[in-house]
């Protein structure tokens, strides 16, 4: 008995010494390295996609810096504090969403922004984190797998922000938020029968959804189904994107040598369609490498989830991991033409601020979960 405790102490002592500094600052070095890797690739490709616009690059680097700081800061907050704040964050986010609906600022045909005077803020970003936190908080207190009543309440918590955001309209973010909430439910162990049932019902409800969609969303779906119908109008994005990717071939045209982006045939080349630029310049080899980095980040994150010590942390970490990959999937699938254009950026690579900060705060939470584990013995 004593020897076992001693052994544990010895092990933990050894462990502390090895990772002392990182442990003290609650940094998960694997994640940090992978994320730094990804951001560096992002900066490289942004240099090409943004037509060597140094100003653009500086803004992106600044944002990355802020986002990494935010990540490390959040990593310092122990998971139980996060859990405590979860319902309040969710409530705040929902109220802000309502605020956006009534007092929001229009941008690109959708009402997403809240002008707070000194800066503009997208409440939907807050909900990307608050929603899975809320569901995880709610289910953590219940016995798992959750009972139907709890599932229904959880569904309601998912539905509120999803509907509000879809109304803005921001279909991409709505999908991400819904999937983050559903991921929590799934990890909590709801029966697979229920899931298949819901999917079937969803398919049945698709025509209803269609009737609620805005014209430009319908157009996107139609364009997705047949982009060649309108090669110079709505189909232009996806055609040019496929040309960029396809012409990249196995090895790509080389960094800064992709004609589609450089000659401005590819629209949104530094934001939503940046993956097409990458594919054109680095080819299939580059794409597989990049996707593998994303996969590794996911695997590390899900590993962190399995190592988590309480239900809240576990569920939240699992959901954040999945959402991150869904993020990537939706973007690449959209750019390669297997999903309609829904306006989801390529995580950590696309030019743009808010989503990057949110994403890295998510990784901050993961780090916090992983580095605030209590030793079994204590």
């Amino acid at each position, binding site marked *: 008995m004593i020897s076992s405790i001693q052994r544990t102490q010895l092990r933990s002592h050894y462990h502390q010494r090895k990772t002392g500094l990182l442990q003290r600052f609650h940094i998960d070095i694997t994640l940090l390295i992978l994320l730094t890797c990804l951001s560096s690739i992002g900066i490289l490709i942004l240099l090409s996609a943004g037509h060597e616009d140094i100003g653009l690059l500086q803004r992106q680097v600044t944002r990355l810096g802020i986002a990494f700081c935010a990540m490390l800061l959040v990593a310092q907050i122990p998971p139980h504090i996060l859990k405590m704040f979860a319902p309040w964050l969710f409530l705040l986010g929902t109220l802000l969403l309502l605020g956006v609906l009534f007092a929001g600022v229009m941008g690109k045909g959708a009402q997403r922004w809240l002008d707070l005077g000194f800066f503009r803020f997208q409440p939907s970003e807050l909900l990307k984190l608050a929603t899975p936190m809320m569901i995880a908080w709610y289910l953590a207190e219940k016995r798992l797998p959750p009972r139907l009543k709890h599932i229904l309440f959880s569904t309601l918590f998912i539905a509120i922000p999803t509907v509000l955001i879809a109304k803005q309209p921001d279909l991409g973010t709505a999908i991400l938020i819904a999937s983050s909430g559903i991921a929590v439910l799934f990890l909590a162990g709801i029966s697979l029968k229920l899931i298949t049932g819901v999917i079937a019902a969803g398919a049945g409800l698709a025509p209803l959804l269609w009737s609620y969609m805005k014209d430009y969303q319908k157009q996107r779906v139609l364009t997705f189904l047949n982009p060649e119908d309108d090669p*110079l109008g709505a189909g232009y994005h996806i055609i040019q994107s496929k*040309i960029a990717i*396809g*012409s990249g071939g196995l090895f790509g045209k080389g960094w800064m040598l992709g004609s589609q982006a450089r*000659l401005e045939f590819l629209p949104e080349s530094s934001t939503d369609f940046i993956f097409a630029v990458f594919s054109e310049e680095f080819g299939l080899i580059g794409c*597989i490498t990049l996707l593998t980095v994303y996969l590794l980040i996911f695997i590390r994150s899900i590993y962190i989830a*399995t190592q988590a010590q309480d239900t809240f942390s576990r569920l939240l970490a699992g959901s954040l991991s999945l959402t991150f*990959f*869904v993020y990537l999937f939706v973007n690449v699938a959209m750019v390669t033409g*297997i999903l309609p254009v829904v306006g989801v950026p390529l995580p950590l690579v696309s030019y743009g601020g808010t989503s990057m900060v949110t994403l890295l705060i998510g990784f901050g939470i993961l780090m916090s979960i992983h580095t605030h584990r209590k030793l079994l013995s204590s």
Partner: protein
Amino acid sequence: MKTSFDLKSSLHENRLFLSRSITLIIFVLILFFSLIARLTYLQIETHEKYTDLAQNNRVRLSVITPVRGLIFDSHGRVLAENTPGYSLELIPEQIKDINLTVKKLSDLLPISENEIKRFNRQRKQQKRFTSIPLRNRLNDTEVAIFSANRHLFPGVEIQAQPLRHYPFPELTSHVVGYVGAINEKELKTIDPVNYRGSRFIGKTGIEKAYESKLHGQVGYQQTENTAQGRSLKVLSHTPPLSGSNLTLNIDIDLQRIAYNQLGDYTGAIAAIDTRTGAVRALVSKPGFNTNLFAKGIDSTSYKALRTSLKQPLFNRALRGQYPPGSTLKPFFGLAGLEHDTVKPSEKINCPGFYQLQKKEHKYRDWKKGGHGMMTLHDSIVQSCDVYFYILAHRLKIDRMHSFLSKFGFGQKTGLDIIGEKSGLLPSRKWKRRVRNQAWYPGETLIAGIGQGFNLTTPLQLAHATAILANKGKGLTPSLVARINNNTIKPRPTSPVVLGNNAHWELIINAMYDVVNGARGTARRIKEGAPYKIAGKTGTAQVFSVKQDEKYDEENVLEHLKDHALFIAFAPAKDPQLAIAVIVENGGHGGSVAAPIARAIFDQYITTSL
């Protein structure tokens, strides 16, 4: 108890979570490999297709229109040149509402329905970010109006494009001709590749006949372009080949004199260098402003030209078919001598009319009371009709036909521009074939004085006169002397060979006396000439005077007045230039047509002396 439950529950939850995590990982791996599969399909399977598409996007093939060849006169003076012109062009991709923009533009500038239709048609075929002309040939005022309002029209611009200009439009309208916008019919006949950048094509005259030389060969440039159509760098360049410059045989000074000499009359003049066949002047009056056509003529002006009684668009020199009248007499005289139907010394009485045996009809001489006893020489000098009635009667129509054929009558001369008429040299066979009628002896008589069925073009007359002046040696008339620096060689026609060469002299002497003899019908033009002219007057009836009527010169309507003709060559002994002049409704050849020829000879022979 509670702890054990918790522990058990926690253990259960742990296991559940683990299994769900594994499911999630499998799910994510499926997504991951589906993306890889998709990328492999795009980047490996369909790589070639997309490479082509990217290349098409990137590289723009632009056409470089060749510069149209210039046209010069024999002394190197420009007859057709290229001047900068302006067109209004739109880049549809840079315009929000094209229909509105077009409407606003047509409020500002005159734009026709057809132009809008053509624009819309072209818009559908054009690549992205290419400018499409809405209106060509803006004048300076229109350029100024648009420039002042340019800020209201993003994506609309004025582009410079060469425009054909003719410094002597009226003088050269029936020689040089003009260019105009390519029409549907022409579009089917031209090489679409070579004409990709061309908007104009030769419509008449030299511009049409030498279109292939003047146009040149289109050039290409491959550029790397941005989506907005901005070119970044030139990838390949095939320069265009400019059209050939043409030097004409026309002497614009001579042309001007000929044109001006016609005064207010309508008519035509052809002047051919007898030594080379070079056409030095080819006038059809009135001419018209060919620059109107090159700029794109409006329908009102075009209608005015088309309906004008003087028919300015009609090329009288090539297509005007006139009764040659007495100008044919030297040729028939030569035929009579050659066929031995008249002797040089034979005298025939002219009582002022001639009657065929057993016929009452009187064939009158133009001179009431007659000329008296006439030799062949006298009958040419004084233009006796009765002598030639008799000569024709003896010759018969078929011999007249075959002899005059040798001088090119009834055939196209083969001038190097298009549209020439062949005139008419009647024969028994012709009348049977075309009219399905027998030939009447009376028709032979009037043919003998160049009336009846006979029709000639001014060019034919000049060409025949040149052959006569050269004593049988014929050269095809030609307008173009040089293509770039390549001189066009004279093209001889089959020569007229006589049984007795002395007959040339007899006829030429008679023509000499037409001008230089005391009783010659054109004697008034000999005054003060430092060289000698040989010629023959003609007066062609526009309508027939009835048997009992007298042609009343004073009271006949202007457009029914006789045409005045004159053919001549000079110097008589060493011919250089042969001329045919036709003055429509001019009256007498000797008084109206001959002085015009004299003025042309003065210019040509004195400057070349």
